[in-house]
């Protein structure tokens, strides 16, 4: 597709279950970012990939969170043993490459709204 897509758009799960969120970046974009937006908060950086490697995982809130990217394209964000505080909108973005600058802005997907009951 032309833009960044994410699936599912909504996910309701029970506390303690694992969830997997998927991001399809724009074709040809080598950099991919995951963010989280909790209610009333700004975007919280989680992790970014350059190709398949993740140089910065410092934003992952706990070891229950992990992410991978294979083939330099699709990425999955996995949350194990979900907790209620994990409820948020999870946003994915991609850019041509990772260096910030003119013409290299991030394009965001519509997000996955995760609700943990």
């Amino acid at each position, binding site marked *: 597709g032309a833009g*960044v897509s994410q699936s599912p758009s909504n996910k309701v799960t029970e506390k303690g279950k694992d969830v997997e969120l998927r991001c399809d970046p724009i074709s040809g974009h080598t*950099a991919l*970012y995951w*963010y989280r937006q909790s209610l*009333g*908060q*700004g*975007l*919280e*950086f989680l992790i*970014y990939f*350059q190709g398949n490697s993740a*140089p*910065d995982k*410092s*934003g992952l809130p706990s070891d229950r969170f992990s992410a991978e990217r294979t083939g330099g394209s699709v990425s999955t964000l996995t949350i194990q043993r979900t907790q209620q505080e994990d409820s948020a909108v999870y*946003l994915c*973005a991609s850019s041509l490459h*990772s*260096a*910030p*600058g*003119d013409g290299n*802005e*991030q*394009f*965001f*997907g*519509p*997000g996955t709204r995760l609700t943990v009951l």
Partner: protein
Amino acid sequence: DQQVKQNSPSLSVQEGRISILNCDYTNSMFDYFLWYKKYPAEGPTFLISISSIKDKNEDGRFTVFLNKSAKHLSLHIVPSQPGDSAVYFCAAVRYNFNKFYFGSGTKLNVKP
């Protein structure tokens, strides 16, 4: 640590007037600043950016001003239109670190 702050959660402006959205940051090492616009149920879309070596960047109705000594940037929208009603986020990043810091957003309402 909240390195980028938007202290006004909301702003209401009359159509045709100027909208001024403000953003403050704490890290003087940031190299690049961006503004994004977000409609409900959609991801943010890039609006305009500015490098730390500049103090102004203009794109049509949108102008971003950077005051490095005050660690402050602002987005001016002139003239404001009802379609500009959205949540605006500012963001900052350091080159070579690629970790973007976002503010909490300001909800702009442009009244017809």
